[in-house]
């Protein structure tokens, strides 16, 4: 560009946020003397429309062709000021921001030093902006198909919302039926409506929607591509039942001679057959053969199911199928795992028969569960006279998970209520650390429980044992805890203990995150783009999260996130094409030696190797502009647009010259 560089500098007061500490007028006056600066102003709120109009007017009237705004973080307003430049006909990449709020006025009270630092930051931006080049954003079309991974309530909700809008959805579920954990529950808090009754209509809709392709007993193998254009490989595991022929009559299950403990749907508390449908309302209705337990796969004979199937739907030779689909957006709703209470041996789960975990109790109290909703001890007959419910098992505990699992208090209160309801006259003890009931109608539910006569003991349970010490303890489970309100040790003998085990991320959450190119927190929950302002998007465009895979969540919150993710997806689909930031890496093919070092360094798999040329090539739509490849390139053949060496050097020179001027130490500018 031969045109003379004319920089406009705009120093923002941000009310008193900046002007309270930084002498903004002085900064603006000083900046007017920097090289290339045509005009330098300060203004109360640069982000206001009047502030933006100042920029636009200077571009049009004074011929300003580079813009520096010294204000807040680019996260906040870079888009705003780029927009102002665009409207005035200036390429938005000729704009640069100096952060004198988060990096300056908010972190010191020393006015002189703050002002000097503001000058250094402005000088750096002025130096840099002269080297900036106009760049054009890339637009890619968006495939309207959506992939939803996980058929729990969050995934179902997202699928239905998207499908209802007329866009096609692939709903992938690992288990033989959709429904997730919610299908296992008996009642939902605090309204106590029947979980299955409110979920099964949604499951049915998802199973029969013309826009939803249901892929149950399937898992995503591989994902490639970028927002708008993902290619996904899905493994459809062999059901050994031909779906087109099966009528779902259930004759096969009835005749199957092999009974196995159902660790999935019945949470290990009930049995199922080797050919089974997880539960009567399963969607789809087709059963699946569990080849690990099926007698035919063990010994080569039996085939009872095949003999009795009226439609010849059993196929022992069926193989896994790999399906490849193209989608524009992905929603992950993979849910949670229950904390394994056996990890806390002193609570006795797995050793003491009448210690149950929360999902076991859900099945126990469920009318469709193994006992038909009768709350009984492990012998299957005896009703307990007294029940202890232990909160925070594996949660809020530095030995296991430090976080609060958020649902357990309400779940424990619900359990207490169900015991009172089904076993009138029984005693219920809730051992809690704090009762946390934030939610609509939740606190009211807690008070209802207080009135129902539940005993609340504030104290973490130290031990659950069957070693009787005092009279009255023989044959009971003794719950030992320090009652922190009374300040005494208590030993409460009970017949049954329910451990409100916390929620954990899925055992394979990390692998799933890597597969979809998103990140996990230290507890392996998926990380959202912004915890407050962008709770369902991720740092990878086109990949969204919903429900408990992002953190412990109850049903209302999961459903809300499912809907939110659907809305975000629909907003992208509605744009038809998506703009990709132009600050991407570019390979200089003349000097590239084809060493492939950059391919390994790229965290987004956005560099491909052109074998016919023996050169690396950046797929711009995938590149996030992180610059890792630039650092890794041994022949200095990759540069990052908008972050070129001359731009960064000019920025540093601008900062350092100012530092020298005011004899500032590096620490003060850092």
């Amino acid at each position, binding site marked *: 560009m031969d045109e003379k560089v004319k920089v406009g500098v705009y120093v923002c007061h941000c009310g008193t946020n900046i002007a309270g500490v930084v002498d903004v007028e002085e900064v603006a006056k000083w900046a007017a003397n920097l090289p290339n600066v045509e005009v330098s102003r300060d203004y109360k709120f640069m982000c206001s429309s009047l502030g933006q109009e100042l920029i636009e007017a200077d571009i049009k009237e004074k011929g300003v062709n580079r813009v520096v705004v010294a204000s807040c973080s680019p996260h906040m307003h870079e888009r705003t000021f780029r927009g102002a430049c665009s409207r005035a006909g200036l390429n938005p990449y000729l704009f640069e921001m100096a952060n004198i709020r988060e990096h300056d006025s908010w972190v010191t009270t020393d006015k002189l030093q703050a002002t000097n630092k503001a000058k250094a930051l402005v000088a750096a931006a002025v130096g840099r902006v002269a080297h900036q080049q106009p760049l054009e954003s890339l637009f890619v079309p968006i495939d309207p198909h959506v992939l939803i991974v996980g058929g729990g309530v969050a995934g179902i909700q997202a699928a239905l919302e998207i499908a209802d809008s007329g866009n096609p959805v692939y709903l992938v579920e690992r288990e033989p039926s959709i429904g997730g954990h919610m299908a296992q529950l008996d009642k939902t808090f605090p309204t106590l409506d029947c979980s299955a009754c409110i979920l099964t209509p949604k499951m049915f809709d998802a199973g029969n929607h013309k826009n939803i392709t249901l892929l149950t007993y399937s898992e995503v193998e591989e994902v490639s591509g970028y927002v708008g254009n993902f290619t996904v490989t899905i493994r459809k595991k062999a059901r050994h039942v031909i779906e087109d022929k099966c009528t779902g009559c259930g004759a096969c299950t009835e005749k199957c001679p092999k009974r196995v403990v159902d660790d999935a749907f019945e949470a290990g508390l009930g049995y199922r057959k080797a050919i089974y449908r997880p539960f009567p309302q399963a969607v789809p209705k087709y059963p699946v053969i569990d080849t690990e337990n099926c007698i035919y796969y063990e010994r080569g004979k039996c085939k009872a199911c095949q003999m009795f199937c009226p439609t010849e739907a059993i196929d022992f030779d069926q193989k896994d199928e790999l399906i490849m689909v193209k989608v524009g957006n992905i929603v992950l709703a993979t849910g949670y795992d229950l904390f394994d209470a056996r990890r806390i041996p*002193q609570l006795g789960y*797995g*050793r003491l028969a009448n210690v149950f975990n929360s999902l076991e109790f859900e099945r126990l109290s469920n009318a469709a569960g193994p006992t038909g909703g009768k709350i009984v001890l*492990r012998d*299957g*007959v005896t009703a307990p006279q007294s029940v202890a419910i232990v909160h925070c098992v594996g949660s809020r505990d530095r030995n296991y998970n430090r976080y609060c699992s958020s649902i357990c208090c309400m779940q424990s209160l619900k359990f207490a209520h169900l015991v009172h309801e089904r076993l009138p006259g029984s005693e219920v003890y809730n051992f809690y650390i704090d009762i946390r009931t934030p939610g609509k109608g939740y606190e009211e539910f807690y008070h209802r429980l207080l009135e129902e006569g539940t005993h609340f003991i504030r104290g973490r349970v130290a031990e659950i*044992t069957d070693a009787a010490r005092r009279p009255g303890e023989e044959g009971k489970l003794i719950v030992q805890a320090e009652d922190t309100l009374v300040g005494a040790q208590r030993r409460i003998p009970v017949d049954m203990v329910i451990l409100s085990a916390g929620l954990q991320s899925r055992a394979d959450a990390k692998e799933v995150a890597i597969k979809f190119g998103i990140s996990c927190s230290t507890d392996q929950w998926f990380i959202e783009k912004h915890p407050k302002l962008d709770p369902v998007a991720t740092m990878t465009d086109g990949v969204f999260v919903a429900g408990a895979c992002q953190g412990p969540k109850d049903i209302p919150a999961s459903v809300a996130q499912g809907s939110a993710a659907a809305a975000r997806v629909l907003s992208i689909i509605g744009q038809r094409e998506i703009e990709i930031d132009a600050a991407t890496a570019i390979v200089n093919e003349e000097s590239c030696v084809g060493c492939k070092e950059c391919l390994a360094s790229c965290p987004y798999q956005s560099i491909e190797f052109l074998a016919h040329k023996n050169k690396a090539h950046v797929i711009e739509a995938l590149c996030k502009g992180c610059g890792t490849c630039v650092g890794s390139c041994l022949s200095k053949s990759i540069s990052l647009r908008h972050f070129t060496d001359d731009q960064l050097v000019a920025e540093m020179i601008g900062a350092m010259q100012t530092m020298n001027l005011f004899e500032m130490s590096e620490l003060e500018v850092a």
Partner: protein
Amino acid sequence: MKYAYYPGCSLERSAASYHTSTMAVAGELGLAFQEIPDWNCCGATEYFSLNLLPAYSLVARNLALVPDDLSELAAPCSACYVNLKKTDKYMHKYPKLGAQVNEALAAGGLQYKAGRLKVRHLLDIMVNDVGYQTIAEHVSKPLSGLRVAPYYGCLIVRPDGGFDNPEQPTSLDRLLRALGAEVIDYPLKAQCCGGHMTQITANVAYELIRRLLQNAADYKADLIACLCPMCQLNLDAYQGKVNSHFGTDYNLPVLYFTQLMALAFGLSGDAVGLGSEIVSSAAALAKIGLEVPKPEAKPKRPDKQALPMPTMPDQEA
């Protein structure tokens, strides 16, 4: 496998049978225990409550005396084990303490570099170095039909034990199962035996001992297997006192796990110091003398109504 060996004072007198049986078992398994020359008392639990620096120095002298060619130190007594391990660890963690202790040792011409030795409890060596499989292979007279309560005591697994779960240890359970014994679920397996409280406030100790005996009796144990001379002494020698104090009639022999190993390996009772216990083990051991064949443990068909139990990860052993 060769280890330096710190017997500790008890093993010379009250727990002599622990020493003999350990040596007998070691011979069978090909373990070499080389006793530290001129070792001294570890200070037990008392000295550490009185004066820390002399207490650490007393223990460190034993560490310093270990010959240079040996890198692992075996201790059969839980208190000795904890003291040796703690001294090594703290000298390493707090260099100032390490320097002070070495200054004291220098008076006797000794010094110890913290972290040089790995201090191991005998049980740790048996289950992790020898292994359940090898132990099982040496069994010639399985303890079939003998109901044993595995008693770990409070010291070896906490807080620095590191080789087993502190709340619900299972290594001794699995070792005893490898010997063919029927191991009872013993909920109090890692609770305190009272230690030296018998000398200070006897009533407190009696109650602690009573709980342990009562629980073993509740589960119809034939005997208690232990791994610490203090635990053995309290449960065995004070059993009569407890009976007269509470009006109970416990009659539970308390043997060292090494004695049971030796018996299962086919060694004679005399060779492993059997008979030196106060509550006689004769009646209990008559059960194995009979050589009851191991009952075929056919898994009971679950009752139609009963609900299945979750399985524990270590149940297979």
